[in-house]
């Protein structure tokens, strides 16, 4: 499976170092990490081998390595690491590198690496939205009672966003498929008893319950915050979908505050907001540079935050008839939403897909650790 002539990719190493894996070269291969990790399988355990592959810049092995996705960041490995090599943080960096590697087109992934590309990243949705407004003939701020459909017609927004989103999904699919094929090529065709569908169901359950997260002893507040964000996001996604359905089928929008969907939306938003806030605070109070996060982490986190905050603002500006400000806010909200939904194959967002695939692969190859 592994090429035997090794060709260290020093650019890759420097990338990992810049992406938060700055401690990787300190590892002296004692394998404490592999033993203390509750998610590491008995055969070819991680993250010891990932550490030396990274030290040696073996990019090809690492970008297809399912094991780096089995880590749920409990940090036991870093706590016990005798060399302060912080395997957890190296794996986190490697995951970013993997996303960037498999993303199609690669250009977008590159833009998520540093703040320098931020104007372009935000410029694209602005131009896109202005273009939609121009095409639909609403390139002005409507008068009277605030009704966002006066600016962006439901049709315009649904068609354009849905189209872009499906395009993004297509890109994500290609990336995910590359990853899946890469895993199979480098680490072997799954031969286990579990089928792909079976594994998917199993992993979905695990993800919904965050059961792998829970196995990490060290990091309880991460479990809570991630769970809140996860379910908050799912809730918002469902609400959005229902809203779209209600508009398309029943032209029934905006919904009254007492509507069940609306309530679900608000609860989800609160859960999402609380979870995100805990995450941010955790990062800000963290002592190490990696757990404080890189641009890649923060841009995703802040975008989520932006979506929630502008979303809430948009809602209340409508209720309290905020006039021009409401429309501007709505525009900004849509920019954040675009950022989230269209860029997802290149942002940290896509981690759910890679992790899902890697966990499925692990279940199918018997590398999943069942704790007794």
């Amino acid at each position, binding site marked *: 499976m*592994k090429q*035997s*002539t*090794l*060709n*260290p990719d*020093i650019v890759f*190493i*420097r990338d990992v*170092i810049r992406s938060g894996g700055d401690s990787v*070269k*300190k590892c*002296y*291969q004692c394998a404490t990490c592999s033993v203390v990790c509750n998610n590491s399988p008995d055969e070819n355990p991680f993250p010891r*081998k990932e550490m*030396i*592959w990274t*030290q*040696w*810049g*073996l990019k090809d092995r690492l970008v297809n390595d399912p094991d780096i996705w089995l880590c749920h960041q409990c940090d036991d490995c870093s706590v016990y690491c005798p*060399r302060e090599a912080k395997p957890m943080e190296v794996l986190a960096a490697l995951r970013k590198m993997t996303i960037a590697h498999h993303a199609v087109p690669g250009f977008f992934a590159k833009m998520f690496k540093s703040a320098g590309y931020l104007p372009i990243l935000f410029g694209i949705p602005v131009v896109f939205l202005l273009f939609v407004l121009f095409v639909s003939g609403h390139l002005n701020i409507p008068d009277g009672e605030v009704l966002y459909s006066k600016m962006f017609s439901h049709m315009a927004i649904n068609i354009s966003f849905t189209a872009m989103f499906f395009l993004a999904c297509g890109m994500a699919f290609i990336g995910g498929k590359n990853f899946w094929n890469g895993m199979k090529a480098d680490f072997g065709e799954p031969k286990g008893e579990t089928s792909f569908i079976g594994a998917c169901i199993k992993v979905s359950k695990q993800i919904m319950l965050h059961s792998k997260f829970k196995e990490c002893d060290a990091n309880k507040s991460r479990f809570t915050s991630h769970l809140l964000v996860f379910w908050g996001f799912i809730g918002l996604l469902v609400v959005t979908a229902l809203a779209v359905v209600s508009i398309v089928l029943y032209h029934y929008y905006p919904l009254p505050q007492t509507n069940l969907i609306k309530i679900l939306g608000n609860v989800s938003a609160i859960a999402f907001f609380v979870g995100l806030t805990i995450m941010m605070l955790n990062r800000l109070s963290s002592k190490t540079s990696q757990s404080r996060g890189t641009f890649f982490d923060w841009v995703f986190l802040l975008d989520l935050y932006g979506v929630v905050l502008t979303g809430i603002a948009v809602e209340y500006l409508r209720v309290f008839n905020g006039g021009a400000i409401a429309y501007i806010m709505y525009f900004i909200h849509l920019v954040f939403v675009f950022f989230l939904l269209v860029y997802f194959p290149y942002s940290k967002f896509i981690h759910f897909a890679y992790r899902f695939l890697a966990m499925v692969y692990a279940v199918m190859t018997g590398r999943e650790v069942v704790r007794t």
Partner: protein
Amino acid sequence: MDKKLGIYLCSGCHIGECLDMQALEKAALGECKAAVCKKHEFLCGREGLELINNDIKSEGVNTVVIGACSPRVNFDLFRFGDQVILERVNLREHVAWCHKPNDEDTQMLAEDYLRMGAIKAVKINFPEPYIAEGLTSKILIIGGGVSGLTSAFSAASLGTEVVLVEKQAELGGWVKNMHRQYPKAPPHAALEPTGLPELIDQVKKNSKITVYTSSTIEKISGEPGRFEITIKKADGTAVEKAASIIVATGWKPYDAKKLEHLSFGKHPNIITNVMMEEMVSSGRGIKTADGQRPKRIAFIQCAGSRDPNHLPYCSSVCCNVSLKQAMYCREQDPDSLVFVFYKDLRTPGHHEDFYRHAQNDAGTFLTKCEITNIDVKGNTLVVNAADTLLGKEISVEADLVVLATGMVPTALDEKVLHLAYRKGDELPQLKYGFTDSHFICFPYETERTGIYASGCARAPLDTDAARSDGTGAAMKAIQCADLISRGMATLPRFGDNTYPEMYMQRCTDCKRCTEECPFGAYDETAKGTPLPNPARCRRCGICMGSCPERIISFKNYNIEILSSMIKNFSVPDEFEEKPRILAFMCENDAYPAMDMAGLRHIEYNPHVRIIPVRCIGSVNNVLIADALSGGVDGILLIGCKHGDDYQCHFIRGSELIGKREGNLQETLQRLALEPERIKAVQLSINEYDRLPKLFSEYVEEITEMGFNPFKGM
């Protein structure tokens, strides 16, 4: 000197409850012929000591025998000055504490020991130290590398005159080709200058130091305190005298031509770490054979070292050196890739900090492995390795391969001392060309008195360790000169001012003394007669044990004394049904073990009589024959462990017992006795728990065999 013997018996520490003190006193005044005998229940107390001191002062007692505890305790209390002969009879640890109280056999043991101690005291003479004519205090240092230079400078700083002989035209040894050294002080990160130019400067400026460069030793004769040294210079010879010698002849790199399995010689871009160091220190920079800067450099650790086919030992410095050289490469070209292939990364102690620092670099790649081979494919060198941290088998392409070759002591195959010693012209080597003896406890010692090994001549060391080695060796050399000037022995019998005297009229020129002396103390005259060099002697008495004519003796230790002791213990006749075993015992290890058995109140057979000896090798066959013909049923020779990991303080004393066994068995045959009547035993100082079994089994064996037919004759 007229001896007036005083015997003082202590009944304290339960001795009195175990032994009939009256009977002992009777023996003292009777058979022991003591002029005075006093008993006390607390002899080491103020009153007890006064008792003895008063007798010395007012009664003229000048020979004191103390029947109390072991001579290894209360040594500071029973100290009566150098005008009084003192002998301690160990009634406590060797008798009262380990034998049945108020028993006939126990009492017999105590009385025997008292008689043996008394006769020994009577026979001892005051030593007259050996101080030869024409002593110097100068020190000769062979080798002007970092270790030798440090020795020279350190010794001179104490006012000692030093002669430094260096083979090369310039001082500095291998370190002068060294660009930088790996860090030796916190934070162990940046490479350091070697400090060699400053050291050379200090040595050259010091008026106490005479430096001979481009010079080697032609001949060394004489003995510590007055070695005669002939130095071969580029333009003739010089003659110097020295009291002691430091051998700091250092190392050379292992011959890389022998490393065919690592393809040395197959491509000019496969070089050694020494070649790499020279390339950097010359200022040429790191280049391949065609003058290019290499992009990929591979370091192969243990190139020759840790390899049974080459150097079975670890050269200790190569891991740190390769990390250092990896830093050279990375500094020269930040885009270069450096690989280090090691078996185990060995950076002990604080050097771990250096490892941590050196490895924390994007372009440095390390793995444990076993090197399979190095393939030469045009200008590409392919390092193939197995059992790596990255998988079973890997290959790495490189354009420069550096073999971390190890250190070989210069003295392995080069003559450096040219000693005019009958026993050989170089220092005996322990292993692989390294010269030392008792390297754990006494690291500078060699098997030649007054000649100390320092630096890489004795072990693979880095510059820092070589410097500190040089300081320590200088101390030993000066101390030796000092002791010799006072007529005293060096290790391990520090301060002993006796020496072997020979009654040459009876010498048959058999040369056993010459051959058996582990320290080469005996040369021989043109006629072949042994020629002693007493200052080379360590006072072990092995020559005394070797001499069939019994002509070698020390003032306070000789065959007559030992023989009298043998004659002075009881040998029960056959009707008493009590065997008698004589155990000669090494006083350094077995004797303290006996004390510890006593301390633990371990009971053992009372039919054994012990005579402590300087070294088991000093026991002359004549003594054994005497004892056997006197009716002793069996002889135990309890010495130290010998072999590769010998414990004998005189290197081969205990081993010689086996070598002399042929002669011994002849003696037994002559007496028509069973060979089992003599038994050699190796015992470590901590094996006191073995003693009871050892004694009882031997007594049983002898009893089964039957008593010595010479009994009562």
